[in-house]
């Protein structure tokens, strides 16, 4: 899904200037029929969702609010996103942890039950197959969510390794949660609103923690996490109850929490400095280059034992050749693939995500530059439509994150 979201936007608007309209229309028509729909599809349409193809699904890119307003409202009040296109998965069995540890960089064994972390599935070369939030429910049950665009690839990868693992007598099996829908509730009103719908004390559930509980009469998996930089939750709910729950959340917020589409979701995650797999991380990027060294567990650094560990551990020691950094810039907003140059005009890298920040009212971007030129304050040029524009390497997140952590 390279450049997925921006390409999506571009394919919509480039169409405005397209010379070959019939071909474009035909392509849209051909794919639309095959697109998967979430349990909330009709609800999106009824609420004015502009539905677009995304990773094989028909998803709302925005509703009636502009992307700018939606982004601001998430940080001021809150947002409800349908992220049911993402793939929830449970790994079960007494060897589930050693099995998963072969495939990811996290110290899964070291996680306390009911806690989770962002991790990366790696290949033999240390490159990223996908990023994923994984949770240790208990010692013999791991719950994880992988990207919609990577679903087939990830499942094939896990399945192949599972087969080999089981052949050697390992005890692990999986369940793909296609019977469930996933809602992301984000922003300052997320916790107070959700508290109205459950008896569990949410003030005791901190960032990265997980529990199974009753929400609005349904058995849900609740993770205090998200993709916006705000406090919030991802709620896995039985699909037949998803609509009820979405309506209840919106109602309890008295209209302050708004349905929010993929467009604002992308602005929010960019402001929070979070990677979009396919843009900011790919098969050939290592987690170290992507700035996720912190996600390699301490024990894993000492022991290795995951795919590509040699490359990754060497990069931790010697430093990676390129690094993901953030930028502020002037001129037109940088987009994925904009060239980055040093002040002398030499190529030093490429933008992987960029746009106008609705909260900061200026251009933000992330991309990869050669090590040595990655320090905050380094002046760069970002080339857009052939013209260099002033940019400066900037620490991320661009907008301070507000994760709910014990004080």
């Amino acid at each position, binding site marked *: 899904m390279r450049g997925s979201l921006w390409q999506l936007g*571009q394919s*919509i*608007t480039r169409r405005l200037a397209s010379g070959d309209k019939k071909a474009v229309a035909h392509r849209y028509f051909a794919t639309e029929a095959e697109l998967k729909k979430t349990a909330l599809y009709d609800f999106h349409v009824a609420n004015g969702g502009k539905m677009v193809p995304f990773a094989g699904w028909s998803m709302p890119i925005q509703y*009636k609010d502009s992307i700018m307003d939606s982004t601001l409202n998430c940080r001021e009040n809150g947002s409800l996103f349908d992220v049911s296109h993402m793939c929830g998965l449970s790994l079960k069995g007494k060897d589930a942890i050693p099995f998963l540890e072969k495939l990811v960089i996290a110290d899964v064994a070291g996680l306390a039950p009911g806690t989770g972390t962002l991790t990366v599935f790696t290949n033999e070369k240390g490159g990223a197959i996908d990023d994923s939030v994984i949770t240790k429910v208990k010692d013999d049950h791991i719950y994880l969510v992988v990207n919609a665009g990577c679903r087939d690839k990830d499942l094939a990868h896990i399945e192949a390794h599972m087969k080999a693992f089981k052949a050697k007598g390992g005890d692990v099996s999986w369940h793909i949660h296609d019977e469930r829908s996933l809602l992301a509730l984000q922003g300052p009103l997320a916790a107070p609103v959700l508290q109205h719908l459950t008896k569990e004390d949410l003030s005791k559930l901190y960032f990265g923690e997980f529990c199974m509980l009753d929400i609005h009469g349904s058995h849900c998996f609740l993770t205090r996490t998200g993709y916006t930089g705000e406090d919030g939750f991802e709620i896995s709910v039985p699909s037949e109850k998803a609509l009820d729950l979405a309506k209840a959340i919106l109602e309890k917020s008295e209209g302050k929490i708004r349905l929010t589409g993929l467009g604002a979701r992308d602005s929010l995650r960019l402001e929070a400095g979070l990677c979009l797999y396919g843009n900011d991380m790919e098969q050939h990027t290592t987690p170290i280059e992507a700035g996720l060294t912190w996600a390699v567990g301490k024990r894993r650094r000492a022991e290795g034992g995951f795919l590509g560990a040699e490359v990754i551990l060497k990069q931790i020691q010697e430093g990676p050749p390129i690094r993901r950094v953030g930028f502020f810039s002037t001129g*037109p907003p940088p*987009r994925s693939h904009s060239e980055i140059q040093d002040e002398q005009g030499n190529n030093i890298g490429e933008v992987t995500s960029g*746009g*106008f920040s609705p909260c900061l009212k200026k251009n933000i971007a992330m991309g990869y530059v050669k090590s040595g030129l990655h320090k905050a304050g380094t002046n760069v040029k970002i080339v857009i439509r052939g013209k260099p524009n002033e940019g400066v390497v900037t620490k991320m997140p661009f907008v301070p994150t507000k994760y709910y952590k014990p004080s």
Partner: protein
Amino acid sequence: MASRLLLASRAASYLRISVSHRGFATVLKDLKYLDSHEWVKVDGNSATVGITDHAQDHLGDVVYVEMPEVGASVTQGQSFGAVESVKATSDVNSPVSGKVVEINEKLESSPALVNSSPYENGWMIKVEMSDSGELNKLMGSDQYSKFCEEEDSKH
């Protein structure tokens, strides 16, 4: 408001219900339109160019407008600049050929004028036309309204 109507009409066209497009994306009578959603207003040999209400509505919040320099030449149907929204980048094509004699400098600091006033304060360039005969190749308002309707119904 315009976008709400647009969506209503789109839903209607999806359901194969015919709806009147009056009051949906505004189309002005005395302008001419290019099929890539730019308008031109002609006054003698001078032509003022911008993007239509329909185009700004599809683009969403405009955050940057890239324009040519005064004196640059533009060609009918060819890109002379770009409009960047939060969502995406779109080329802007010139409905007429000629020389750029003025650009709307206000768009530098207030690109959102393209959204709030696409036909007035959000104009982009003024062109001294080299061939007024080209105007015959452009759409009138009725034809353009119909064109937008057909394009939206494909979604």
